[in-house]
């Protein structure tokens, strides 16, 4: 790994600057998984240090260790050269380490000032709120952030970007030394972003150390002084932003040799099963066109929020398209509800197993047969024996581990729950199977089993769409890969031949959406 070595040399130490925060050899193990393996990382006062890595590389885990939410199994946290052990997030906060989350936790019906000091409102005689001090202190913080709104404004009246500023202002109450931004621009529009950049730069000039997590290359190159990369739970080098290029960073992110088993992928394809022609849902995604043939696995790769799940939901009848066509088996179909979709032979294994995939309070068997009740009933009455047969078949085929069919699915592990959801759809014998993040939050063993199952299903003639934000998954199972970024298909690739860096470029906005000769795309 020549690249990483040189990158490391030009990075971390050597400049004579003392880091305000150092993480040394942090190791974090979860049952069955090493999430972080001896990761070291440091931030200097007055710098924006970008942290990069694919989904599952360990960024979030590292930040949770830093913020006291996870206890590391090994390693040290040094704040201003002093070793710290954080038992709770509160301790971390008090020491001056603050995380700004994507999800906002403000009280909308309160003023900006009340939100900033929520939980620590200044009091005066008789336990009454000292409004004068409250607004004076709030205004002082807002001024530091160069905010344009007043401390007396209602939070519900503010734009998302301004709400985020309130969130940041709240962090400043504790005079932070290090502020971590986790994908802060995910919910911001393009013209709101500069406001956030200004705040980050203001904080930086005031000597705060900033950790900036994002997938978006343009932001990282615009804001940061240094970039560190995590890969598969390991530290993979730090580079000075000024001395590097997007290409180099991309290589650091993915530079592993994936052991891909292209040979096990299905090979015999039939006619087009699904064809999307310029499918559009206004404000969500635009002009999405691709095809899936019988027996083929198409991977849809993109970041969270790129519009992938929404495309799936539209095919499944849960969203109304505002333009374009969906063709099944060569015929234009109008799918108005999930019921229509099931009748047409479409199955969707949704992204969120617990909220969308399962009735947690129901038992395994009832969940398994829920999408195909007509096949296990006659004249409306359930046939208990037929139901049990269906359950046994898929329970054995997928090796679902559960004491009995009477077990409530809420009590099963993530992997087994996911297998129940997949079983539920196999039982309907669909023509098109869509799997949205089929292995999210699932242990390695079940993951491999589910991947093998997906390939097996395609070989038996299913057309399969796998939506994923994990590159090994997409590369490992797909015959073709459709890349999405910001609600558009940016490129389409041959799943056996595409290189990882090209793929990363396509989903991080480095490739402009265009119609230039994508592989295999039929002429509309």
């Amino acid at each position: 790994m020549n690249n990483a070595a040189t990158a490391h040399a030009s990075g971390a130490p050597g400049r004579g600057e003392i880091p305000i925060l150092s993480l040394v050899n942090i190791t974090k193990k979860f049952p069955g998984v090493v999430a972080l393996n001896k990761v070291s990382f440091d931030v200097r006062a007055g710098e924006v240090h970008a942290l990069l890595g694919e989904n599952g590389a360990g960024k979030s885990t590292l930040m949770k260790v830093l913020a006291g939410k996870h206890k590391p199994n090994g390693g040290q946290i040094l704040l201003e050269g002093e070793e710290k052990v954080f038992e709770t997030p509160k301790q971390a906060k008090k020491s001056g380490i603050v995380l700004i989350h994507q999800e906002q936790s403000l009280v909308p019906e309160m003023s900006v000032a009340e939100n900033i000091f929520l939980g620590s409102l200044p009091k005066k005689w008789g336990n009454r709120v000292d409004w004068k001090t409250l607004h004076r202190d709030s205004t002082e913080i807002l001024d530091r952030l160069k905010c344009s709104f007043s401390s007396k404004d209602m939070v519900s009246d503010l734009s998302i970007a301004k709400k985020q500023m309130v969130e940041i202002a709240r962090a400043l109450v504790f005079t932070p030394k290090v502020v971590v931004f986790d994908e802060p621009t995910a919910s911001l529009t393009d013209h709101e972003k500069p406001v956030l950049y200004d705040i980050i730069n203001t904080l930086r000039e005031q000597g705060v150390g900033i950790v900036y997590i994002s997938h978006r290359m343009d932001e990282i190159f615009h804001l940061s002084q240094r970039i560190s990369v995590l890969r598969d739970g390991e530290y993979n080098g730090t580079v000075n932003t000024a001395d590097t290029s997007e290409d180099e960073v991309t290589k650091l992110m993915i530079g592993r040799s994936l052991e891909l088993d292209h040979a096990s992928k299905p090979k015999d394809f039939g006619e087009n099963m699904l064809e999307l022609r310029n499918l559009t849902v206004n404000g969500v995604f635009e002009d999405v066109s691709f095809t899936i043939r019988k027996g083929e696995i198409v991977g849809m790769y993109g970041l969270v929020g790129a519009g992938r799940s929404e495309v799936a939901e539209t095919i499944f009848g849960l969203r109304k398209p505002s333009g374009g066509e969906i063709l099944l088996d060569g015929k234009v179909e109008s799918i108005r509800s999930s019921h229509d979709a099931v009748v047409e032979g479409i199955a969707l294994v949704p992204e969120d197993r617990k909220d969308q995939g399962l009735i947690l309070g129901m038992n395994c068997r009832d969940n398994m047969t829920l999408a195909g009740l007509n096949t296990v009933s006659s004249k409306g009455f359930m046939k208990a024996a037929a139901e049990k047969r269906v359950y046994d078949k898929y329970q054995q085929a997928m090796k679902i581990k559960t004491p009995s069919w009477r077990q409530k699915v809420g009590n099963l592990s993530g992997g087994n729950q996911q297998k129940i959801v997949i079983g539920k759809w196999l039982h309907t014998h669909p023509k098109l199977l869509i799997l949205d993040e089929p292995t999210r939050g699932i242990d390695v063993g079940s993951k491999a089993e589910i991947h093998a199952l997906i390939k097996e299903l395609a070989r038996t003639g299913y057309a399969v769409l796998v939506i994923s934000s994990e590159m090994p998954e997409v590369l490992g199972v797909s015959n073709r890969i459709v890349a999405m970024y910001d609600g558009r298909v940016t490129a389409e690739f041959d799943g056996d031949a595409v290189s990882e860096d090209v793929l990363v470029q396509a989903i991080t906005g480095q490739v402009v959406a265009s119609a230039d000769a994508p592989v295999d795309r039929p002429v509309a």
Partner: protein
Amino acid sequence: MASAEQTKQGFMLSKTHKAGLLNFLSAQGILVFFLICMFAFSLFSEQFLSQSNIMTVVRQASIIGIIAVGVTVVIIGGNLDLSVGSMLSFATVVVVDLHDKIGPTGAIFAMFALTLLLGAVNGFLVGFMRLNSLIVTLAMLSAIQGLVLIYSGGQNVDIANQSETWFGVFGRGYLLGIAVPVLLFALLAIIVQVVMSFTGYGRRIFAIGGNPVAAVYSGIRKNWCVFSTYLISAFCVACAALVLGSRVMGSQNNVGQGYELLVLAGIILGGTSLLGGAGSIWKTVIGVLILGFIQNGLLLLGYPYYTQWLVTWVIIILAVWLDLANKRKRLLTRHS
């Protein structure tokens, strides 16, 4: 994995141990309470456990019971129906009023049709417009009461020639020595219980009440299913109106007032969760009977009629509290 599993089990064990009493109370508390009451009542009143008294109580409870059967289906589907009280007034007034105008058969058909129409309005607003069921049916409770007054012009209605009509059979008749209202109650309870337990339709209603999002993601037509539960509820109300109208052979404008709460009381007492996705008709039948016996017992003990209201609601709050305590405990074990 193994260690997590162990700690989980350890947690659950200690939890069950501590919550032993609560567990027992939440599972059996109402039944125990009921038995204590029955015993106490029988000590103070010899009539209480007599066959004729028991039959009277069951017959009186059957009107509430018939309605409760339908409302239980709505609740299992994750919604509420508070409009049943006014709907009962409406249906009773209509069937009694039309009896003398178009004859019993026509009156019964017209009453069923109009009541189902009201149910369809509920179902449309909750199922298709996706409005909050509590608000919709509370508004309908008031709106239907207004409708009754407009229809009747504020007058009470009655059947002129009570001895010459077969209409009395639903409220006053006996079949094989059992009162017709009780038979009707039992028949409806059995049919609806069978539908809920053994049909695909019942499974879908449970799924919607358990997790409406996942139900839709499974291709279930949630809108139609929710709509249909309100039709079932309205059908049951129409059956109850048949019994009530036939029994009294007349009707006040507000005859159903307060029934929505008694129905709810019976359902909650039986132990069907207001959160949806769980429950059964049997539970409701038991709850309604408990309610009937307690009210009857209080009367036999010589307490005035209105004490019932106080006692009923003390019991209901107790039941809801137990239900919630049970839920919290379950949530705790799930998230451990």
